[in-house]
Structures are given as structure tokens and as C-alpha cells.
């Protein structure tokens, strides 16, 4: 393992310690050691919370900041945060107007959030949840409730965070976040696997010269394994899967997010993005705003995800609203 490690058992603590020191103008630690909160806690606002396993930097804590998430619960690598961590994130974010917990669809997160919401209720904190399920490859469309949340979660946080910042009540924030999720579709392609430092070897394989279409953020197998393709073919394959699923059609305006999975050079993400633009143009779909970079990664996996969100006037305005976090800055 060619990795930077102090101790494989304390990777998350060690990372958090560095993260909080590096970004103290944006984030601070919560009273629970596995919670990160924004230093910009405007009063009188609906709280926005997220959380998830570690290893996806800048997700999840990288989206805590001004006009984005107010707090995030931090789990072990690829493992849900505990219920007490989610509870503390709710407490840190709550300003008496309720909390919207915006997270991804994984069984561990579902259980811990469910328990934390119950505990919060006893403390008089109202929490509503929105569960992202943008990954088209993880289940057929008729079982949409089984789909995982992937990089499309960033749109959910951006939209929900902006709605809360603009004074929306809990209903408004939940509706806006649901709208963002409902209009977003994602797909990933994996080119090489990742290794949990505590395990020491990859627990899945992607053979040299092949690619896994539809791979999940933890190496969950995708739809099919194919011979490695070039950027244009990959872009066509990705758009061919997600565009008909929503469906996105000629005349639509969309936001596009291309994220690396961790170890793919950012240069290659732009090569892929350029081909995606061609595919969308050909279909008459207009790109309003784009994000290209390592927005939601999976340790040192190589590959990329594509997320597309269909916009309307409300979503455009919320997307354009200023925000400042480690993972996303918009002025």
C-alpha cells in the first residue's frame, strides 16, 4: 500500500484533526468528536445536516459551510456515522426552526438516521429527511427507492442549503431538496479499485484493460464490465444510460457535474467533460452550469461519475446563490 498513514486504526480521527486545522475559517468541531459544523451559523434559519462514511473527500464535511450544510456527521471509512453523531449534528444545526437531514440511500445511514431522528424528537428537535437516490445503475427505475445516493447529493445540498439560507421554512427546504434529487441522475465508471487501509488490499477487482460501468462509491458492482473505451465512447455510454432514465430531452436546461473517483487525474475529467458536452449538444440539451473536479471520491479508485440535474427558474436561482465550503465555493 503506497499510502500516507499514521495509524490505520485512527485514519478518520487523524484526517479530521488536519481538516479542522486547515479550514478553521469555514468549519469547527462539534461537541461530538465525529461532527463538523459551520462557523457561519446565521440565526433564525432551518438547519441543514448531512453525514456519511469517510473516504469520499471532499464529501461529506467539505460541504459544510455558509449557505450549504450547517453540520455533518462523520463515519468510519465507507461506514455510516453513529446515531449519536447524527443526533449531535442535528443539535448543532438546530436554531429552533427544525432540521433537514439530507443524506444518501444506504442501509447503515438509514438506520442510524432513523434512530437519531427518534432521539432528536425526544429533545424537541424536529428533523425531516431527504434521501438521495440519483445512481441510475444501482436499481431499475421501477425500484427507484433502492437506488443509492452518489455525487448528485451535491446538488441536493446546494439547493437545500440555498433554500434554507434564503429563509425557507422546513417544508420549503425539504421540498427544494426533494426537487433537486428527483431531477438528478448519475452514473459512474470505475477503472481501478480502492483499498481500505485497515484491510490492506482491494476487495474487488477491475482487470487491466476493462472498465466497470455503473460502479458504486464503495466498489459496488455495476451494470457490466466492458473493454476500456476512450473518452468519447465513455461519454456516449454514460449519457445513453442516464438521459433516457429521467428523461432529459431536447430543450432542457441542465447542470452537469463530473467528479473523479479519487485517483483519476483532473486533466482526464476535462477530457471526459468535453465529450459529454458534445453528447448533450447533439441531443439539444443546454448546459446552464458545470462542475468538474474531485467533488465526491472513493479513496483512490480511478474513474468518474456524471450527474445531470434538470433545471427550472427556481433551481437556477438556488444553484447560483453564493456558498462557501471546502468542497464548493460560489461567489
Amino acid at each position: 500500500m503506497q499510502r500516507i498513514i499514521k495509524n490505520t486504526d485512527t485514519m478518520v480521527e487523524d484526517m479530521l484533526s488536519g481538516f479542522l486545522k486547515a479550514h478553521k475559517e469555514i468549519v469547527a468541531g462539534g461537541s461530538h468528536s465525529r461532527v463538523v459544523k459551520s462557523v457561519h451559523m446565521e440565526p433564525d434559519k432551518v438547519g441543514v445536516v448531512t453525514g456519511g462514511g469517510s473516504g469520499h473527500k471532499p464529501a461529506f464535511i467539505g460541504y459544510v459551510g455558509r449557505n450549504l450544510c450547517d453540520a455533518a456527521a462523520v463515519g468510519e471509512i465507507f461506514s455510516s456515522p453513529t446515531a449519536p453523531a447524527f443526533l449531535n449534528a442535528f443539535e448543532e444545526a438546530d436554531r429552533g426552526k427544525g432540521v433537514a437531514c439530507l443524506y444518501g440511500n444506504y442501509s447503515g445511514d438509514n438506520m442510524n438516521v432513523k434512530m437519531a431522528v427518534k432521539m432528536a424528537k425526544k429533545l424537541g428537535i424536529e428533523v425531516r429527511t431527504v434521501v438521495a437516490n440519483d445512481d441510475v445503475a444501482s436499481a431499475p427505475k421501477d425500484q427507484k427507492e433502492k437506488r443509492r445516493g452518489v455525487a448528485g447529493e451535491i446538488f441536493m445540498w446546494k439547493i437545500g442549503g440555498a433554500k434554507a439560507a434564503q429563509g425557507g421554512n422546513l417544508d420549503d427546504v425539504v421540498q427544494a431538496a426533494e426537487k433537486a434529487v428527483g431531477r438528478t441522475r448519475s452514473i459512474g465508471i470505475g477503472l481501478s479499485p480502492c483499498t481500505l487501509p485497515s484491510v490492506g488490499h482491494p476487495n474487488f477487482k477491475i482487470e487491466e484493460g476493462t472498465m466497470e460501468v455503473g460502479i458504486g462509491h464503495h466498489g459496488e458492482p455495476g451494470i457490466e464490465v466492458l473493454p476500456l473505451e476512450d473518452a468519447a465512447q465513455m461519454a456516449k455510454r454514460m449519457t445513453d444510460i442516464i438521459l433516457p432514465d429521467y428523461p432529459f430531452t431536447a430543450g432542457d436546461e441542465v447542470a452537469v457535474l463530473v467528479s473523479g473517483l479519487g485517483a483519476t487525474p483532473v486533466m482526464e475529467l476535462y477530457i471526459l467533460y468535453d465529450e459529454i458536452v458534445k453528447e448533450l449538444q447533439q441531443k439539444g440539451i443546454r448546459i446552464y452550469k458545470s462542475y468538474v473536479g474531485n467533488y465526491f471520491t472513493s479513496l483512490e479508485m480511478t474513474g468518474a461519475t456524471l450527474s445531470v440535474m434538470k433545471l427550472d427558474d427556481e433551481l437556477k436561482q438556488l444553484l447560483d446563490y453564493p456558498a462557501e465550503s471546502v468542497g464548493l465555493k460560489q461567489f
Partner: protein
Amino acid sequence: MEYIRNKNGWPILMAMVRAIQENKTYLGEIDGLIGDGDHGANMNKGFSLFASGLHEDEISFSDGLNELGMVLLNEIGGSMGPIYGTIFMEMGEQAEALDKITLNDFRNMLEAGLDGLKEIVEAQPGDKTLIDTLSPAVCSLRDSAGKQTSFGEALELMELAAGEGKDATKDMTARFGRSSRLGERSRGVLDAGAVSCFIILQAMAEAMVRLLES
């Protein structure tokens, strides 16, 4: 009538801890086949934390289960924190007023654990989860209690039923949790949660047999 004294929890709890510690690598390997390979490390971390927090060698079975459940729920997270946390806390709560634990009491404890679990997960028997180990174990205890089987024999039968349930997950297709995303590709491999549940029940049963009194 056979029983174990609730106050003699220490050897049972330590047998459970040891079983998990000894099987850390094995559980990680099974999990790595269709999951992300951290099940052994996570379980070991939780059970070891629990053991290191105990200062005396005397703790009641019910208090110990409660404490173990709290540690798993509060420190482990993932899926296993809430799942095992709920099972052990429900079991502990069910027994907290008891001095002597009979077969019928133990049946109620394990049943409470299973019922509590059903409140937080939607998995059903046959979905390739630890419910496929736990549910037959509860059924077996219920059967034995109905037939007035001795406590010792009932524990052996429970271990057998749990083992058969665990083995049956090999031919199942995962329909819940991370491995469910694999569909048919999850067939042919044991479910790691079903295996850890068996290992725990086996350690529990074998330690309890040695503590039986009448």
C-alpha cells in the same frame, strides 16, 4: 428446572468477546467477497472496546448485554452498530429484573432482540442477512420451550438451528444491505452478518451450558 444466574454474566460475555476477536480476520475475508471487508475489524473494535471498559470480573448478563449494545450503537455506526446494538439492548432489557434466567426467559430475551431488530430493518428471512441466523435460533428456542426440553439441550439445538440458518445464506441472493446491489452475483457466498451472528450465539450457548444450575 435448569437456569443460569443472571449475575454470572462475565464468562458468557467474555466468551462472546473472544469469539469475535478470534474470528476478526475470517469475518473480514467473508465480508470482502461481497461487501467491503470491514465487518471483522468493526465487530472486533466494538467488542474489544466493550471488554476494555469493564473493570471488574463481575457483571450481570443483562447489564453486560445492555452495555455491549450501547457501545456498539454509540461507537461503531455502519449497519452493525444499530443492528447488534438493538439486539443486545433489547435482550438486556428483557432480563434486567431477573435473578435466574430459565429457558423460557432466554427465549423471551432472544425474541425481544429479534423483534427490536425488525423495527429498524425491513429485511425478511431469506434476504441473506443475520436474520437468517437469528430467526431460526428464536424458533428453535420457542420449540424447545414448548416441548419442555432441558435448557442444556435447548441451547445445543439453538446452536444447530442458527448454524443451519447461517449455512443457508450461501445459496441465497442478497436482497438487503450493501450486497443486495450485487443481485445474483451475491449467491455462493455466506453472509458475513449471518456468520458473526452464529459465532456470537455459539459462544453464548456454549458458555451458558457450563453455567447451568438446577
